[in-house]
Structure formats: C-alpha cells, structure tokens
C-alpha cells in the first residue's frame, strides 16, 4: 500500500502538514508521536520546506525592505558584542572581548529536529540579544536616524533669521521660524495609503524633537464638515508604545489649497517614526476608528 493510501500515513501527513502550516497543540503532538515514534523527521522537514516555499511566494507579492532603524539596531547588537575582528580593530574597546566571543562560540551542531534546534545552547551573542534592552538600543539608533534625516533634508533648513523681537505671527511664519531656528528639524512628506480617499494629498510634516513642536502642511485634502467629522493626527512613537499612537490633535480643512496646522501632541514624543492622518468623529477619539488616510514616515 502506498503512503498516500495508507490511513496511518495519511494521518501522519495531516498532522505534519498542520504542524508546518501553523503548529499543532500538545494533544496533536502526542498523537503524532504515538503514530510515528521515530518522529517522521524527513517528512516533517519536507512539509516545513514546502510551507516556507509557499510563504516566500506570498511575501514576494508585497516585498518589504528591512527598516533602516531596525537594521541599525541589529547591527549594533552584533558589532557591540560579537563583532568581527576587523570591526573590533576600528572601534573603541568593547565591553567585552568580541574576538573571544567568536572563539568561544559553541560548535555548530547538525540540527536534525526541531527540538534539537530549539535546545541549542545559547551563544554569548544569543545571551546578548536575549537580554538586550530593546528600548535602549532603539533610543540610540533613533538619535542616529534623526541626525541622518536632517542631513538628508537640506532644503528644510533655512539660514537663520536673527529676529530681535518676535512679532505675532500665523502658522506659516511659525512653521518657518521652527525650521530656521531649531537645529534638529526633520521633514517628511505625506503619502496617501493604498485605499485612501484622499489620493491627491501633498505636503509635509516638520518636527523638532528638542522643541517638541511641529507643523503639518497639507494640500489636496477635501474640506470637512466639523459637526460631522474632523481630521485627526496620530504620532507613532515606538519608544513610548508602538501599539498606541499618540493623539496629535484634531483639525479642520476649510478650503482647497494649502493648510498649515500646528501639531498638538498630547504626550511627550520621544522617537516618532510615523505621522498618520485619519478622519474621526467631531472632537477626535482616543483610539482611532476612522480610515487611515495618509502617512508621513520618518
């Protein structure tokens, strides 16, 4: 009897497929072990590879690049704790001997099963990653990200004014004063989200971390009726809480053309990575329920 028509092997294959697709619970694992005490290792790996192949195809439909700040965090972890010989020579002494880390690295074992893989003894690099204060690393890298962004946006910086007496000015002038006067101003541009109803949005966001101030400049967005709905700005700050964007204030668009709105962050912003625009009920909301219309990524 072929494996395909053998009920025992069919059931084993079912369990192995389910495990490869989404994992199985303890009861199913016990059943699998009872049916095939040897572990069906070869077939298990085969289905895992099939699942991985399919997942590759799906991921390629909307390929993403590793965000720069995350790449820097990963590299910082490696360089700071298990750096290569070359890297170590070009840096100040690390907290511990990186070359020794490589020498002391446990020998690579041939992994024959999932259990083997998971039970591999932690390397010193692994220990580092396991204990790394993610937020601490993120903070350091985001400082770098801001610096880089500023340097890459020379058009956002003015020459500096020398204003002796600050006159009463409107949002346009206030925005320009921020750009001219704050050394850490970053600029990012709006992009409509794929399903947005405001595909024609243009404009930018300027933000100064040191001053905790910034401005939206928006055009191409339809006027809202304030008694029915208002636009609301959200600020994603992973250092604070990536799951809960910070309310950046509500505002109205009264007419076509360009609108400049001061950012009204309700909390201190430590490391913004994205500004998002939604349409909410009048007065705004605590947790966004409106459609995500546009974003400006740092």
């Amino acid at each position: 009897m072929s494996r395909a028509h053998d009920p025992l092997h069919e059931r084993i294959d079912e369990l192995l497929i389910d495990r490869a697709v989404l994992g199985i619970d303890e009861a199913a694992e016990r059943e699998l072990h009872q049916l095939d005490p040897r572990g069906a290792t070869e077939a298990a790996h085969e289905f895992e590879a099939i699942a991985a192949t399919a997942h590759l195809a799906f991921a390629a439909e909307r390929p993403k690049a590793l965000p720069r700040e995350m790449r820097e965090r990963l590299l910082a972890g490696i360089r700071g704790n298990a750096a290569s010989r070359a890297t170590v020579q070009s840096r100040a002494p690390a907290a511990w001997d990186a070359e020794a880390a490589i020498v002391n690295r446990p020998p690579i074992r041939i992994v024959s099963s999932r259990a083997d893989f998971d039970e591999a003894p932690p390397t010193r690099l692994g220990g580092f990653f396991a204990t790394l204060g993610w937020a601490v690393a993120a903070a350091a890298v985001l400082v770098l990200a801001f610096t880089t962004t500023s340097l890459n946006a020379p058009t956002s910086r003015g020459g500096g004014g020398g204003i002796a007496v600050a006159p009463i000015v409107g949002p346009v002038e206030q925005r320009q004063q921020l750009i001219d006067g704050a050394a850490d101003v970053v600029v990012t541009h709006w992009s409509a989200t794929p399903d947005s109803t405001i595909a024609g949005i243009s404009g930018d966001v300027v933000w100064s971390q040191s001053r905790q101030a910034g401005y939206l400049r928006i055009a191409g967005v339809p006027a809202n009726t304030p008694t029915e709905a208002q636009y609301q700005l959200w600020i994603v700050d992973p250092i604070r809480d990536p799951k809960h964007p910070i309310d950046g204030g509500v505002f109205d668009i009264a007419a076509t053309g360009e609108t400049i709105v001061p950012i009204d962050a309700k909390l201190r912003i430590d490391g913004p990575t994205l500004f998002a625009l939604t349409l909410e009920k009048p007065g705004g909301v605590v947790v966004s329920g409106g459609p995500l219309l546009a974003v400006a990524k740092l």
Partner: protein
Amino acid sequence: MNVELIRRMAAGDALALETSIDEFGGLVWSLALRFCRNRADAEDVVQQVFLDLWRGAGSYREELSSPETFVATIARRRLIDWRRSRQRRGAPVSLEAAFDVAAPDAEQAWASSDEVRRAIGLMQGLRAEHRRVLELSLRDGLSYPEIAEMLGVPLGTVKSHARRGMMELRAAMVGGAA
C-alpha cells in the same frame, strides 16, 4: 553568494551575520510583519530569526533547500512560536504596521531571486481555494477556525483545502510524484 554566506556563519564569521541582515533582512521582515500585523512583535521575531540563523547555520544543506527557503523555514518556526505564545485574536494592530503591510517597498532583490520566482510559479499552479486557505494561514497567521469564519465555509473544508494544497505543492516540487 548566499550559500557561501551561510557557510561563513556556520564557521563563526560574525561579519557574515552582518551581511545576512542585508541579504535576508527584507525577506524576514516581510514574512514577520504580515504574519504578526504588529510592528513591535515583528521586530522581536526578526531579531530572534537572525539569532537562530547564527545558531543554526551549520544545519544548512545546499542540496536540500535554497538559502531563501532555509531562512524562511527558520522564520516560520519563530512565527509559529510567536503565534502559539499569544492569543492572536484581538491582538493589537498598529497604524504603522497596517500601512507597512499594505504598501510594498521599492523593488527588493530577494523578491526576484530564482527561488522566489520558482515559489511563485508553484503557487500559481494551485487550485484557487487551496491557495486562498494557504495564503490566510501561512502568510497571515490565521487559524483554521478563523479562516472558516472569514470564508464562510465549514472548518473541515478549510483543513481539507490546506492539506490538499500542501500535497499539491509537494507533488509539484518533486515533479508530480506525490
């Protein structure tokens, strides 16, 4: 060459691990972000995947899989672990992750590799209903009951589609000798 890159990692070359972040980072991030739908969790998964890659590079067998499939397999193990460790339903979905998932980045080298093109070709050969269930489970991390609810079909049908889809893929990958 990515095969050589994995060999170097197996030999303990930490520079190769750095290089692997550039070579495979986009791939792993793409897998994790869509599956987790939460940027912070996806970042944790990516970190763990590269640690696993460093630890497990010595297990790579060129004759059995491409480097991309090897990395994706490691990533999937971590994603399944992540899924198991939390109650997925009701998990927070950040605005940022929602946008990131929806918008592809500029053309990524990993997405045009021979292995990925082969994978896309295999998936195109699947029956639509099998492909859809695998898409929702493998890519989006939805459970069979969640998929059944979403598609409005019995749970048994979802399981059947997933299993038959996987068997179809196996048959295709070994040249029709299922």
